[in-house]
């Protein structure tokens, strides 16, 4: 019998196929509060069909689109499974849109998007896997996208 390394959840979201080693960054993106009432399970470096991967299970929370976009920035191969009553109700792969708005801040301190202007940060996606983005305003590429996620 196959041993379950992390338990099944009744309702919530399972993020599977996270690039190995990136689960902690995914947790940061999800902005999990410290005073949790439900369970969050994390498995790092689990053997999968396509090599090692990380898995995150979040009970009682269904991810919205902007959270999925953020995950695609650091784990482009991840799949999102929405669980309802222990069954997979929805399953889809993360997909980076062609433009990222208000999710990543520009790493350039003198970019106009980092000043008090009425503007949200805006990036063009120039490569989806591995994710590569350039600032719409100053055209710079952040070196480490995960460090710039708002």
């Amino acid at each position, binding site marked *: 019998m196959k041993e379950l390394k992390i338990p099944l959840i009744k309702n919530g979201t399972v993020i599977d196929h996270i690039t190995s080693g990136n689960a902690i960054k995914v947790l940061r993106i999800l902005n999990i509060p410290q005073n949790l009432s439900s369970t969050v399970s994390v498995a790092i470096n689990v053997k999968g069909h396509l090599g090692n991967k990380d898995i995150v299970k979040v009970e009682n929370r269904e991810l919205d689109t902007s959270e999925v976009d953020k995950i695609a920035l650091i784990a482009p191969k991840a799949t999102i499974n929405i669980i309802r009553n222990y069954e997979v109700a929805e399953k889809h792969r993360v997909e980076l849109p062609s433009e990222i708005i208000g999710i990543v801040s520009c790493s*350039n*301190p*003198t*970019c*106009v*998007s980092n*000043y008090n*202007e009425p*503007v949200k940060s805006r990036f063009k996606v120039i490569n989806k896997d591995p994710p590569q983005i*350039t*600032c*719409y*305003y*100053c*055209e*710079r*590429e952040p070196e480490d996208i995960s460090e710039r996620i708002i």
Partner: protein
Amino acid sequence: MADSYSDAIVIRHPQEGAARLAAEFAEVPVLNAGDGAGRHPTQCLLDLFTIKSEKKKIEGNNIVLLGDLKYGRTVHSLAYALSLYGVHLTFVSPDSLKMPNEVLNECEELGVQPKYTSNLEKSIKNADVLYVTRIQKERFPDAEEYNQVVGAYKVDKNLLKNARKNLVIMHPLPRITEIDPEIDKTSHALYFKQAFNGVPVRMALLSLVLGGKL
């Protein structure tokens, strides 16, 4: 607001991307007259015009960009534009002031593989154009970083001993010490003519965006 009492907006701004942001709000054409350490497209057009006027064509020239390639907005625009023409580019700068990756990527996507060196003497031997930039104190977030590189290069008669006779030297001006004034009266000095070319090129640009015929 400025667009309600003007036919065009020309914006020079210390922050990168400012002109692009203004263009999102303005109802009239916006010209980027230099945005921080970002781009300087009108300077770029006059630089191209100057090279073409002097060398009869842009493609195929050996062009050396020298100085502050990291913060120098004129060289960012120029490296991209020159790559459209298929020139041979050499970048010369201190290690800490190398051309940003974004600009390098643009050149490479256009099929130009710039050479990189800190050896100016060697790189100008086969150069047709030497484009010199000032190391701009105001662009450095850290004064110590500026002090380490200021005066790193100087173009003088001694340096030009082995240069081609028809080498032209350009500079977006103002210069400080990077070009010795003794060069001004030599046939190499093109920077004053280049600066003058800014007038007709920018007149042409304004005419173009205002619907005039050239």
